[in-house]
């Protein structure tokens, strides 16, 4: 299997391998960082990490969406409004509490209802690695209280000169009658390398456990990416990336509307130097821009009281520069400076015969400017003890752009914009107890700025609790005190890791009922405005075991649990229950068989104010297999499996609405590489 990957996923140049190794060696010192390398070619060049092994299991089949992969990481959960466009949550932090970055770029969805999280724009075929930074390391790329998810895009590879290589994938899934096609081409010539990829997905309404069809669960999308890389010398490369993603007819069964059309255009230019000026290593500078457009659609829904158009746009331009300075005594400091500017506008127009159209801004057009610097100092004290200090400061300002947006926001309060100074700091101590056991502790303080929806959102309907949400321009920053402990037991074959965390959140931003206001959305329960709750806390633990039970048999198991509470001792909403995923895989040279067990406890600690309902526990079984063979001297891999073998009718706690997930699903997938 490994050799096969090496055949088609081409080998990096030697120089680039060193770059990877250097970056990762620094990064991997911290247990707060979780990197998933999707390509074994890179894994092969660096020390094998826990997460890499996790991935081999969880990248269930090559038609898996990024969401399928994310949902298997122990830190992550997904808030689901439909089978597509699920919103990532890291240790029960979500939305504005997280940075969700593509290759370090900031992208803001253009949907007021969070139907277009940034994760939908990255297809696994374009993904090189996933970087999950939790807790005290989570703010280095942007002030955030809940952490960072960075999706590193795949790069063109310097293969044998003037050789075209590529992969074609084709798959079918029965539950949603889903078709998946993707293609990847890589070409290198001299100091130039090019990569182009395309993906097409077409899913029908899926069959839920038990046999019922879930209406409005279909989606269609295409995704294209083009990337060019030029290496003037072994020390430097320049890379240009372009990505286009178009989705249409995307159903959201838990929402009252679907998406007619969603579009993303992303472009970036990167310059990277292994050794830059002023003793800087891995000096990388990127300039980027992106444009997102999103149009909701209610024309397919029965009994729509009032037809409405809800378009939204978002554009962002930004830049960052980062590098590492090597100090004496193996000390080092990673510096980063970044800036971005995001423009958002969304509106709603409703139509009633013989009346003028009803038009309002749901996101009064606004600009968010952000300027930040961060520094991470790594201090080895002796061979077994080391310390890391992370810090970041941001200046973030919001401005309302048009007279109309100012007029509208003045109804809610201050419309003169705002500027905030955000400070983040953390300290971490890592200690190697023995050759096999190491542990680490960290503590820190981090802050985040309220989002545009929280400040200026105008009657944004939340179908989870049935309330219209209005913004509050005078919200305070949310800030968090966090502590984290991890212990690692590692032998050559086996790894066991345990992680415990505690976060105390101040000025927690949550919707609070405004009984005097009347809801705009027909049938809504009322109006909530965003307000600062004095305190909330989240605590929890994750454990991962990766064991080689026999020579060719691996067992991987992750367990996660989170507990959250508000000051008034009410449960914090959006807390996933205890969950375990265990997989057993037998891998021979040509074929593999994998049995997966997925179990979640019931969640009865719910916040009814936030529209939560009790969720029953469930047990799922999945069976997967693959067979590799040669056809016309080319590598072919046939993958097949059955997910949800028991055809269990279930939903996860973070799923909106009472919508069951996909039932028994048979998939078959062919992968052809040259």
């Amino acid at each position, binding site marked *: 299997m490994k050799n096969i990957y090496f055949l088609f996923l081409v080998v990096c140049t030697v120089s680039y391998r060193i770059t990877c190794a250097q970056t990762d060696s620094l990064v991997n010192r911290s247990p707060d960082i979780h990197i998933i390398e999707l390509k074994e070619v890179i894994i092969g060049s660096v020390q094998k990490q826990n997460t890499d092994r996790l991935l081999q299991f969880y990248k269930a089949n090559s038609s898996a969406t990024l969401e399928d992969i994310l949902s298997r990481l122990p830190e992550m959960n997904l808030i689901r409004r439909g089978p597509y466009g699920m919103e990532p949550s890291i240790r029960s932090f979500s939305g504005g509490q997280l940075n969700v970055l593509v290759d370090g770029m900031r992208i803001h969805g253009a949907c007021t209802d969070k139907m277009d999280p940034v994760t939908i724009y990255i297809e696994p075929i374009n993904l090189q690695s996933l970087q999950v930074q939790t807790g005290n390391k989570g703010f280095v790329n942007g002030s955030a209280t809940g952490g960072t998810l960075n999706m590193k895009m795949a790069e063109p590879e310097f293969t044998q000169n003037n050789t075209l290589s590529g992969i074609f994938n084709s798959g079918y899934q029965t539950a949603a009658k889903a078709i998946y096609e993707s293609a990847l081409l890589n070409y290198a010539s001299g100091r130039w390398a090019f990569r182009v990829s395309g993906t097409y997905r077409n899913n029908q309404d899926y069959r839920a456990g038990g046999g019922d069809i879930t209406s409005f669960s279909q989606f269609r999308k295409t995704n294209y990416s083009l990337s060019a890389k030029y290496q003037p010398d072994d020390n430097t490369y320049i890379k240009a990336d372009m990505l286009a993603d178009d989705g249409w007819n995307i159903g959201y069964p838990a929402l009252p509307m679907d998406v007619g059309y969603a579009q993303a255009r992303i472009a970036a230019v990167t310059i990277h130097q292994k050794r830059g000026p002023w003793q800087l290593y891995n000096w990388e500078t990127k300039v980027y821009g992106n444009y997102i457009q999103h149009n909701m659609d209610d024309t397919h829904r029965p009994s729509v009281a009032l037809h409405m158009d809800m378009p939204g746009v978002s554009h962002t331009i930004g830049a960052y520069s980062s590098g590492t300075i090597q100090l004496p005594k193996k000390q080092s400091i990673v510096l980063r400076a970044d800036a971005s500017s995001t423009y958002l506008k969304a509106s709603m127009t*409703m139509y009633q015969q013989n*009346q*003028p159209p*009803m038009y*309002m*801004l749901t996101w009064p057009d606004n600009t968010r400017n952000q300027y930040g610097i961060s520094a991470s100092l790594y201090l080895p004290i002796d061979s077994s003890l080391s310390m890391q200090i992370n810090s970041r400061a941001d200046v973030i300002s919001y401005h309302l752009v048009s007279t109309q947006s100012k007029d*509208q926001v003045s*109804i809610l309060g201050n419309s003169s914009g705002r500027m905030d100074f955000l400070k983040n700091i953390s300290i971490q101590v890592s200690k190697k107890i023995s050759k096999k056991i190491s542990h680490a502790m960290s503590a820190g303080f981090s802050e985040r700025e309220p989002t545009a929806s929280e400040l200026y959102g105008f009657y944004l309907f939340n179908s989870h609790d049935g309330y219209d949400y209005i913004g509050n321009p005078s919200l305070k920053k949310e800030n968090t005190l966090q502590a984290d402990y991890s212990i690692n037991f590692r032998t050559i074959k086996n790894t066991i890791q345990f992680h415990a965390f505690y976060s105390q959140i101040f000025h927690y931003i949550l919707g609070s009922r405004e009984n005097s206001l009347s809801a705009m959305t027909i049938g809504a329960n009322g109006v909530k405005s965003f307000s600062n709750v004095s305190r909330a806390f989240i605590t929890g633990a994750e454990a991962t075991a990766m064991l080689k039970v026999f020579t060719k048999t691996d067992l991987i198991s992750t367990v996660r649990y989170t507990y959250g509470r508000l000051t008034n001792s009410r449960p914090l909403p959006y807390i996933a229950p205890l969950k375990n995923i265990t997989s057993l895989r037998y891998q021979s040279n040509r074929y593999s068989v994998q049995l997966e067990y997925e179990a979640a406890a019931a969640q009865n600690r719910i916040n009814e104010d936030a529209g939560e309902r009790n969720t029953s526990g469930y047990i799922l079984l999945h069976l997967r297999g693959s067979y590799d063979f040669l056809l016309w001297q080319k590598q072919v891999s046939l993958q097949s499996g059955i997910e949800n073998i028991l055809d269990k009718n279930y939903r996860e706690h973070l799923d909106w609405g009472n919508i069951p997930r996909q039932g028994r699903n048979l998939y078959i997938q062919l992968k052809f590489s040259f």
Partner: protein
Amino acid sequence: MKKHSPLQILCCLLLVSITYMSCKKDAVAEPDPAAGLIKQSEGYAIGAATKVEIYTESGSITTGYNKFYIALYDSVSGIRIDRAALQLTPMMDMGTMQHSAPFENPTSENASNHLFACSVVFIMPSGSGQNWTLSIQVSNLSTNKNGTLTVPVTVTEPAHKTMNSFTSAANGGKYFISLVQPAKPKVGINDFEVVVYKKISMMNFPPDSSMSITLYPEMPTMGHSSPNNVDPVHISQGHYKGNVNFTMTGLWRLHLRFMAGESVADTTQYFDVEF
């Protein structure tokens, strides 16, 4: 040759400069005070030797509150008259009977920007056998001459009513109310203003300041309201001012509840605003 004294030269320079400056001033035409207004009617107040021009903002006169701007000229010289006392008398002639309407004379005897602002709340539209006239009695305060101009006025019903009347459940009195603001509604915070007059007789409608008013805007199509509205309170002369917030364009219904002290006067009044 006689030499000019420095004082004479200075006086000369001063004179020239003043002439020049005044010339320059004349060269810049004074903006027309009636710019943006539409002339509704004109005529002579016989006896006052005054030409009267009546302007409105919209060019039409509707039932409800109408603001008038009146310009006066000396009928011989054509020079503007900026000091005068004006007395309005709106009158509806229905053949068998006559009645007046609530009105406001100009608040000052001095014109503001050469115009005298005043208003009438026409309480019914014109129709066949139902004719409105507006009489303006002019007292020219510089000549002490008096005279009256009476012009016919055509009053139409607006697309959305801006005038209503009710009989108070508290005291049995009849009240006329009319919407003044928002005249140009927008999404956002709008000034809200209503006038309230009490009918004493067919000819006497004095302003009323006794009401306390609650404002509740609603979008009838969707049944929702808007946040942070400010109930109108009495300012002067029957004018009640507050704020109304529109969260979107479209048709809005502004519900008004009138209280006379502790007792309810009327709860059924509303005005529609569409934009």
